[in-house]
C-alpha cells in the first residue's frame, strides 16, 4: 500500500519537474533567435571570421540544445544548415553547393547531432536521478516506521513523519537533537554502545525503551546501520501492541487449566505454567533447566528418552502415547494418570516441544464408575425375570437380555442388530409398527402396551405365545431408543382359563344345587300345605260324624259304645295336634331368620304372660337374672323361651313350691350362654342325647303329656342362629337347659 502511494507520488514529482522546463515557444524561440544572431554576426562581421565559418551557428545550436533540449536543438540545426548554406557558404545568397564549399556543412551537421545527443542523454540521467530521489523521499516520509538519519555522533539530521508522531516532537525540534534524548534514562548507555556497534559491525538490532516528549515510555524495536556517507540510519518501530499480545498470550498459557511445558531440544525444561506447578508439586525454579524425565515415573524414563528423540526426528503435532495409559510423577512420589499433547515449536534455538498435560484422574474415576455402573446395569438386565429388549428407531435390536433369550429361544448375539419383526407374529407386525410410531410422537416416557389387548410373541421355533408388555422411550444423542419389557403370560393365561372353567363349573353346580334345593323346598312346602289341609280334613270329619252319631244315638248307646266313640274322637284330636306340631317344626326349619336386636328380658316377660293360664294358681318361685340383648329373630327366640319355660312349668307340677330360674353364664364377647333351670322331674343324663330328637320322650304321657317335638324345635332354632343347646339333669332333682346366642354388638342398646 505504502509502496504504491510512494510510486505514484514519485511519478507526480517527475512530471512536475518536466513542467518546470521553459515552454515550447520560448525554447523554440530561443533556438530561432540564436540561429538568427549567429547568421547576422557571421554575415556582418565576416572580416573577423572565415567567410565560410559555421562556428557561430554551431554555438547557436549548442545554446538551443542547452536551453531547449533535443527538439529545439534539431530545430536550430535545421535552420542553421539552411541559413548557413544560403548566407554563408559561397556562393553567398545562392542555393548552389559545390563539393569544396559544402565541406563545412559535413563537419557541422555531425558535430551538432552529437552535441544534441549528448545533451539529451545528460538530461535523461538527471530526470531519473531526480525521480529516484523523490521515490526515496516518499518512502522515507510515508514509512509507517520511524526513520531517522543521524550524524556519526548520533545527532539527528533528519527524521520522518512517523518518527515525529511516535515521539511527539516536531521535525524541527528533532533535527539536531541527540539520540540519547529520546530513550528512557536507563537506556542512555545503550545508545553509545549502539553507535559503537554500528561503526564496527555496521548493524544493530535491539529493543529500547523510548521516551516521548511528554515523558511517557514505549517499547521500540530499533534497527540501525551506517550509511555509505558515514551517517547513521535508524528505523524505529513501536512494538507496544506486539508486547501486549505476547503478554496476553503468556497469560493465556499461565492461566491454562492444562499443564503446559516447553522442552528444549536436549530435553531440558524451558518453560512451565502455573498448572504444571500445581499438578506436579514442584515450584517453577525447581523445574526450569532440568530434564523433563523428572516428571516421568522411573519405570518409563528410559523409554521416554527414546520416544522424545524419536519425536525430534519427526516432529508433528500429536498426542503422546496414544492407546497407552500415561502417568505423571509428583514431587512427593505419587503418580497420577495424564493425557499429553505434543506440539513442535520452531525457535531460534531449534525445535522445542510444547507439551500440554491434563490430569485425567477424575475422568478415569468417572470412566471407571461409568463402566461399573454399566456392568451392574447389564447384570441387572440379564438377571431380570422379564425379557428386556431395546430397539433403535429403525426397530433394530440393541439390547437382548438373557430372559429374552430364554423367552424367544434365540441367542442374544444373533438377535442384536436384527429387526424386532423377527419376534412378532406376522399379522401383528404392521400394528406394532404403528404403535411404536405413535408412541414415539408422544412425550410419554413409559406406557403399558397391555392396552393393545392380547399381544403375542413369536419364538424361534415358530411358537406363538401371549405376552404382557410395557414400553418406554429414551432419546440419546439425538437417536430414539425404545425399551420393551415383556412377560410370557402363557402360564397365567392357562391358569386363568382353567380358573375360569373351574369357576364356571362350580357356579353351574351351585346353580343346579340351588335349583334342586329350591325345588325340594317348594315340594316340601306344597307337601306341608297338603298335609295341613288334606290330612286334617278327614280327622275333622271323623270327629264331626262321631259327635253327630253320639248325639243321634245318645239314648240307644250302651256305655261301652259311647266310650269307643270317645276314643275315636280323642285319637282324631291327638292326630290333629301331631300334625300341627309337625308343621310348626317344619316351618322353623324353612323360615327365614330376620335377625334384629332382641332384649331377652322383655322376651321372658312376654313369654311368662302367655304362660299365665297354664300356671294357674300354682306356687312358683321365679329367679330371673338381668339378661343380655342378643341378635336373632324375635319370634323364633320367643318360641325357644316358650318351649323351655313351659317345659319347666310342666315338669315342676309335682312340686309344692316350684323354682324356676333364668340366667346367663359368663360367656365370650360374642356369645351369651343363657340357661333355664327348674327343680322338677329332671332326667337321667344317659338319655340326654334323646332329649332333642323329634317325637323322643323320656316320660310317659300319663305322667307328663306331650308329643316330643318342642325341644327338637328349640334345638333347630338355636342351631339356625349359630348357637348350641345342651341340658343337664338328674331324675327328681330338676333340669337345666343351656343355649348360646350371639350378643348384640352395640352395648348401649
Amino acid at each position, binding site marked *: 500500500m505504502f509502496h504504491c502511494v510512494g510510486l505514484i507520488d514519485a511519478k507526480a514529482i517527475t512530471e512536475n519537474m518536466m513542467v518546470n522546463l521553459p515552454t515550447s515557444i520560448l525554447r523554440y524561440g530561443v533556438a530561432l533567435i540564436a540561429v538568427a544572431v549567429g547568421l547576422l554576426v557571421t554575415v556582418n562581421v565576416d572580416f573577423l571570421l572565415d567567410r565560410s565559418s559555421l562556428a557561430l551557428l554551431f554555438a547557436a545550436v549548442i545554446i538551443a540544445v542547452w536551453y531547449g533540449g533535443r527538439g529545439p536543438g534539431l530545430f536550430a540545426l535545421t535552420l542553421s544548415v539552411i541559413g548557413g548554406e544560403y548566407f554563408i557558404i559561397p556562393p553567398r545568397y545562392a542555393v548552389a553547393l559545390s563539393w569544396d564549399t559544402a565541406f563545412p556543412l559535413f563537419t557541422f551537421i555531425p558535430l551538432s547531432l552529437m552535441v544534441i545527443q549528448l545533451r539529451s542523454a545528460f538530461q535523461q540521467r538527471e530526470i531519473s536521478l531526480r525521480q529516484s530521489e523523490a521515490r526515496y523521499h516518499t518512502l522515507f516520509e510515508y514509512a509507517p516506521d520511524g526513520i531517522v538519519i543521524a550524524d556519526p555522533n548520533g545527532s539527528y539530521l533528519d527524521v520522518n513523519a512517523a518518527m515525529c508522531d511516535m515521539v511527539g516532537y516536531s521535525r524541527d525540534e528533532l533535527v539536531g537533537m541527540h539520540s540519547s534524548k529520546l530513550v528512557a534514562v536507563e537506556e542512555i548507555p545503550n545508545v553509545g554502545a549502539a553507535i559503537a556497534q554500528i561503526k564496527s559491525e555496521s548493524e544493530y538490532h535491539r529493543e529500547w525503551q523510548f521516551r516521548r516528549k511528554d515523558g511517557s515510555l514505549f517499547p521500540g524495536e530499533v534497527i540501525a546501520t551506517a550509511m555509505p556517507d558515514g551517517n547513521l540510519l535508524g528505523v524505529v518501530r513501536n512494538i507496544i501492541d506486539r508486547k501486549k499480545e505476547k503478554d496476553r498470550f503468556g497469560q493465556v498459557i499461565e492461566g491454562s487449566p492444562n499443564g503446559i511445558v516447553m522442552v528444549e531440544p536436549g530435553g531440558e525444561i524451558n518453560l512451565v505454567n502455573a498448572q504444571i506447578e500445581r499438578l506436579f508439586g514442584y515450584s517453577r525454579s525447581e523445574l526450569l533447566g532440568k530434564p523433563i524425565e523428572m516428571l516421568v515415573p522411573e519405570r518409563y524414563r528410559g523409554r521416554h528418552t527414546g520416544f522424545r528423540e524419536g519425536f525430534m526426528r519427526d516432529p508433528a503435532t500429536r498426542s503422546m502415547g496414544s492407546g497407552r495409559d500415561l502417568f505423571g510423577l509428583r514431587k512427593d512420589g505419587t503418580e497420577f494418570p495424564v493425557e499429553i499433547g505434543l506440539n513442535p515449536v520452531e525457535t531460534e534455538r531449534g525445535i522445542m516441544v510444547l507439551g500440554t498435560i491434563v490430569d485425567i484422574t477424575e475422568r478415569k474415576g468417572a470412566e471407571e464408575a461409568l463402566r461399573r455402573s454399566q456392568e451392574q446395569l447389564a447384570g441387572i438386565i440379564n438377571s431380570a425375570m422379564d425379557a428386556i429388549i431395546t430397539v433403535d428407531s429403525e426397530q433394530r435390536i440393541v439390547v437382548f437380555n438373557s430372559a429374552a433369550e430364554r423367552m424367544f429361544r434365540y441367542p442374544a448375539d444373533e438377535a442384536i442388530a436384527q429387526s424386532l419383526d423377527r419376534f412378532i407374529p406376522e399379522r401383528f407386525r404392521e400394528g406394532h409398527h404403528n404403535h411404536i410410531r405413535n408412541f414415539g410422537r408422544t412425550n410419554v416416557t413409559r406406557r403399558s402396551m397391555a392396552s393393545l389387548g392380547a399381544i403375542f410373541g413369536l419364538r424361534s421355533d415358530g411358537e406363538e405365545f401371549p405376552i404382557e408388555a410395557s414400553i418406554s422411550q429414551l432419546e440419546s444423542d439425538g437417536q430414539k431408543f425404545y425399551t420393551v419389557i415383556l412377560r410370557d403370560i402363557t402360564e397365567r393365561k392357562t391358569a386363568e382359563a382353567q380358573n375360569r372353567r373351574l369357576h364356571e363349573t362350580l357356579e353351574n353346580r351351585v346353580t343346579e344345587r340351588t335349583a334342586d334345593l329350591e325345588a325340594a323346598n317348594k315340594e316340601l312346602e306344597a307337601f306341608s300345605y297338603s298335609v*295341613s289341609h288334606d290330612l286334617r280334613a278327614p280327622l275333622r270329619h271323623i270327629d264331626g260324624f262321631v259327635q253327630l252319631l253320639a248325639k243321634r244315638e245318645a239314648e240307644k248307646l250302651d256305655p261301652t259304645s259311647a266310650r269307643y266313640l270317645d276314643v275315636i274322637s280323642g285319637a282324631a284330636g291327638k292326630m290333629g295336634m301331631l300334625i300341627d306340631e309337625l308343621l310348626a317344626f317344619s316351618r322353623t326349619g324353612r323360615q327365614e331368620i330376620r335377625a334384629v336386636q332382641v332384649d331377652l328380658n322383655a322376651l321372658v316377660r312376654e313369654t311368662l304372660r302367655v304362660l299365665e293360664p297354664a300356671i294357674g294358681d300354682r306356687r312358683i318361685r321365679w329367679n330371673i337374672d338381668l339378661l343380655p340383648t342378643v341378635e336373632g329373630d324375635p319370634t323364633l327366640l320367643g318360641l325357644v323361651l316358650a318351649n323351655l319355660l313351659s317345659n319347666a312349668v310342666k315338669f315342676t307340677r309335682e312340686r309344692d313350691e316350684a323354682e324356676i330360674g333364668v340366667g346367663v353364664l359368663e360367656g365370650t364377647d360374642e356369645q351369651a350362654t343363657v340357661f333355664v333351670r327348674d327343680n322338677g322331674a329332671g332326667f337321667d343324663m344317659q338319655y340326654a342325647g334323646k332329649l332333642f330328637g323329634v317325637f323322643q320322650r323320656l316320660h310317659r304321657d300319663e305322667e307328663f303329656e306331650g308329643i316330643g317335638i318342642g325341644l327338637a324345635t328349640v334345638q333347630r332354632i338355636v342351631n339356625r342362629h349359630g348357637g348350641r343347646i345342651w341340658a343337664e339333669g338328674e331324675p327328681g332333682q330338676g333340669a337345666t337347659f343351656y343355649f348360646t346366642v350371639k350378643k348384640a354388638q352395640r352395648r348401649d342398646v
Partner: protein
Amino acid sequence: MNTKTILLAEDNPNDVELTLAALAEQNLANAVMVVQNGVEALDYLYRRGKFSERSGINPVVVLLDLKMPLMDGLQVLREMKGDPALKNIPVVILTTSREEKDLVESYDLGVNAYVVKPVGFNKFMDAIRHIGLFWILTNEPPPDTEDDSKARDTKQ
C-alpha cells in the same frame, strides 16, 4: 219368610254336611245356598248360567273354602273385592289350615273374617254358631245387599 241368604262355597260334601248340621242347630240351615266351587259361586253372585234366573237379593255373607276345584276361594275373593257391585258383601274364609301365606293374601284382598275349622267337632260347632249368629243376626249388612235390582242393573 226370611230373605237373608248365606252362600256356602265348599266342595267337600262331608264338610258341607257338618257345616249345615252346625247351622241347623241355629235354625239357619234353610237360608244356606251351597255351591261346589268358585265358578259356581261367581255364577250365583252374577246370576249367570244355572243361576241366571235366580231371584232375590245378594247373600248377607259368603262362606268360602280355599281349596276348591276349578276356581279356589282366593280367586273368588279377588273377583268379588275387585267388583264395586260385590265388594261390600261380607266374605268369611272358612278353611282347614292356618297357612300364613293364605292368611296374609286373604287380608290383602280385603276378607272380612278368616276362620280355621277346628278338628274337634264341638269347637267346629262353636265356630259355625258364632259365624251364623254374628253375620246373619248381629251384623247389619250393607244397604245394596238388600237392593237386588241395583246389583242386577250394575251388572247388566
